[in-house]
């Protein structure tokens, strides 16, 4: 029934919007209070929710019906700690709360941490009319022996208060009823700011006289004018459409108010602090009056877990084991479904070639051996590892592990000029650099985010990991299978550590030279561990991340397949363009410890790094068809016959780690930074590092041999 109504609303949103009244409502609150879960519960959109402070960057909205002829459009705002906004997300939230045409604001607060949440809630209640307070996580609060006097809280705040739980569904109907209730409630009585009362009243009178306050309270506006936050004041002037004359009147009033403040012995410059302290004091008073806590008897499970996860000797080993497990699963474990996909695709490919046998060879070959082959190649390598990696990563995120990893790694990364959230973006980069680059959004400070975006391609994504694994096994080809497995795993880990090490050094260098700026404030919240909703995580991470990343790669891989077929099959004067390119790059390749074939494979593999090794093999064999990697011994023979030595293997591995980002990643850098300069740097930096390292390695090898 419920879903039916919802679908109907969606369908009829455009053509029958006059029949149903739409009530625009926003969901505001601190980070980590379960806003997004509540949003999902109410709208049924099932949008992904993360246990990570400030993860919601884009505004999500959904519809649901609240009464027979009313529909609510709910907007999920980014979490903020107060209306004092500094980051882009906070500004979005603040401006939406203050200036949007939203009829109601639902402020979601964490019942377990009422006092701190009230700081924001009090500010919003004081600022505008039609605010509803929702006490989320009431089930957890009940379990931990917390008792909240709802009626008293409602009276003290003078707004409706609804106890709720997104997990159990408690209070959802009351929320809908509160939204449907069309009686207007005014902004709540302002927090007492006794010292500054006269000063605030002076400004308040002028604002009331001008009259353009929309949904906002004149008293609250007066406080904001006196806080003298230039950016916000200009926003207020813009949205409330104050004329220059009116602004002059307000300025005049502010001048008088500041005089009053000075005469009473307080510093007008400290008014902002004073106002915030008054709000905090009031939050404490309300907390003391309405909350009864039972003294805690024993440690919660969350605290016990933290003893190990954050423990001095256990933290890094635990992280390393988890990291290795995720890496193993997405790199090795994914081979089996990969093989299956390969076989399925080649079966379909055979059928297709049978069906298309009537077509002329010149059309059939590029389509099948070019586009289809590369496309299916990319899909069968990428899809399984991503379908494993992303859900696992999202589970760790929802469980609450990621902020803790950021906490443990903050110091080493702080020293290299970045912050603890960068390794998280790097971990995402292991799945796919595009996601890693987008994931850098979790970093607050602009320049630290840019560092993370520029250096993300140093982390080998799962398109490059198979090549690295093959290369590390080739190093130990003469040994027994088990010994080879262990040694090559160690070498692989060393390669990854090298990439982390180089990332840190470069961050240090870049932040010391032309990328210096504000340090992020890292007031990182460590929320309690929460059981993730496994079903939802798997559906969302497959839909949101895996398919999106895959779609982007497919778009690039298809034309690339065509181009690769063309240059490896067309002949000019008896030679293919590919072999010409190989010869052209050969001197440079030799200088860097490799050969031209390897370099041109990296160039041609730019759309998708998965096909680098197949291109190398195709060049050596001289055919015009990409071939699957043969068994290790055959591969070794082919490569040795073409002059590969240990030097070649090591240099290729290093170049695999440090070359330019793949085409989709490059596009993502540009989209995230909106800067051509950043995109160019993201190519130039790794290329320089890779070339330098390869040159040094090649020199070193020739010295020793």
């Amino acid at each position: 029934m419920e879903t039916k109504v919802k679908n109907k609303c969606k369908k009829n949103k455009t053509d029958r919007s006059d029949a149903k009244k739409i009530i625009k409502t926003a969901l505001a609150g601190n980070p980590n209070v379960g806003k997004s879960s509540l949003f999902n519960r109410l709208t049924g959109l099932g949008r992904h929710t993360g246990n990570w402070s400030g993860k919601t960057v884009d505004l999500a909205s959904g519809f649901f019906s609240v009464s027979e002829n009313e529909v609510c459009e709910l907007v999920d705002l980014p979490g903020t700690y107060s209306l004092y906004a500094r980051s882009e997300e906070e500004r979005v939230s603040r401006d939406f709360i203050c200036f949007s045409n939203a009829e109601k604001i639902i402020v979601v607060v964490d019942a377990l941490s009422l006092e701190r949440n009230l700081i924001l809630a009090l500010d919003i209640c004081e600022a505008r009319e039609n605010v509803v307070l929702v006490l989320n996580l009431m089930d957890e609060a009940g379990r931990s022996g917390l008792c909240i006097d709802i009626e008293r809280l409602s009276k003290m705040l003078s707004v409706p208060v609804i106890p709720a739980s997104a997990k159990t569904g408690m209070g959802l109907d009351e929320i809908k009823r509160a939204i449907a209730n069309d009686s207007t409630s005014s902004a709540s009585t302002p927090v007492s700011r006794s010292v500054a009362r006269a000063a605030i009243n002076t400004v308040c009178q002028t604002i009331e006289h001008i009259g353009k306050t929309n949904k906002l309270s004149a008293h609250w506006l007066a406080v904001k004018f006196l806080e003298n936050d230039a950016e916000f004041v200009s926003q207020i002037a813009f949205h409330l459409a104050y004329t220059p004359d009116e602004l002059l009147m307000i300025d005049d009033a502010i001048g008088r108010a500041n005089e009053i403040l000075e005469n009473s012995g307080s510093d007008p410059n400290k008014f902002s602090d004073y106002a915030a302290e008054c709000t905090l004091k009031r939050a404490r008073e309300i907390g003391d009056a309405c909350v009864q806590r039972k003294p805690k008897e024993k440690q919660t499970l969350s605290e016990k877990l933290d003893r190990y996860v954050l423990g001095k000797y256990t933290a890094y080993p635990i992280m390393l084991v988890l990291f290795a497990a995720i890496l193993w699963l997405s790199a090795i474990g994914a081979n089996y479904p990969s093989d299956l996909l390969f076989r399925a695709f080649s079966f379909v490919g055979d059928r297709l070639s049978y069906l298309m046998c009537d077509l002329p060879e010149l059309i059939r070959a590029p389509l099948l051996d070019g586009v289809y082959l590369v496309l299916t190649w990319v899909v069968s390598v990428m899809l399984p590892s991503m379908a494993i990696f992303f859900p696992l990563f999202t589970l760790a995120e929802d469980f609450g592990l990621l902020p803790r990893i950021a906490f443990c790694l903050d110091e080493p990364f702080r020293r290299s000029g970045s912050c603890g959230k960068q390794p998280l973006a790097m971990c995402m980069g292991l799945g796919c650099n595009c996601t890693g680059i987008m994931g850098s959004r979790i970093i607050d400070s602009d320049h630290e985010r840019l560092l993370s975006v520029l250096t993300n391609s140093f982390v080998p994504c799962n398109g490059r990991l198979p090549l690295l694994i093959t290369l590390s096994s080739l190093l130990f080809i003469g040994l027994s299978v088990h010994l080879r497995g262990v040694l090559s795993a160690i070498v692989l880990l060393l390669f990854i550590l090298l990439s982390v090490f180089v990332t840190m050094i470069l961050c240090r260098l870049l932040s010391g030279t032309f990328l210096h700026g504000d340090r992020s404030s890292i007031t990182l919240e460590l929320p309690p561990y929460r059981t993730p909703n496994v079903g939802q995580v798997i559906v969302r991470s497959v839909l949101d991340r895996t398919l999106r990343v895959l779609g982007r790669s497919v778009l690039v891989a298809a034309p690339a397949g065509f181009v690769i077929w063309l240059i490896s099959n067309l002949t000019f004067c008896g030679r293919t363009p590919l072999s010409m390119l190989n010869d052209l790059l050969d001197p440079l390749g030799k200088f860097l410890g490799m050969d031209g074939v390897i370099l041109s494979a990296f160039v041609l593999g730019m759309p998708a790094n998965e096909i680098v090794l197949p291109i190398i093999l195709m060049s050596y064999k001289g055919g015009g068809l990409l071939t699957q990697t043969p068994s290790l011994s055959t591969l070794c023979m082919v490569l040795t016959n073409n002059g590969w030595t240990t030097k070649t293997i090591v240099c290729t591995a290093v170049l695999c780690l440090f070359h330019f980002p793949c085409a989709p990643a490059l596009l993502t850098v540009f989209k995230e930074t909106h800067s051509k300069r950043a995109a160019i740097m993201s190519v130039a930096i790794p290329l320089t590092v890779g070339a330098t390292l390869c040159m040094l390695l090649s020199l070193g090898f020739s010295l020793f041999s």
Partner: protein
Amino acid sequence: MNIDDLDILTLADINPGDEVIVLKNNLTDEMRRRMLDLGISPGTHVTCIACAPCGRPKAYAVYSSTFAIRYDNARKIEVEYVSGNKSQK
């Protein structure tokens, strides 16, 4: 006057398990306001919850929420031990 030179107890000095009351917030501008928004102002009870493996940063419980605050910021917040707390420096 440089507060580093004086032997003043700050948030950065306390260890996991210690409970303190905030005396003074010596941060300026934005960070000062950030701390206020988290509820950290004179009179607030703060408990150190954990310490990252390399010693910094530390995590503090403020009004039943846990926050990591970087060393540079934590050492600008003067505190005193809640009376009866055993682990004096």
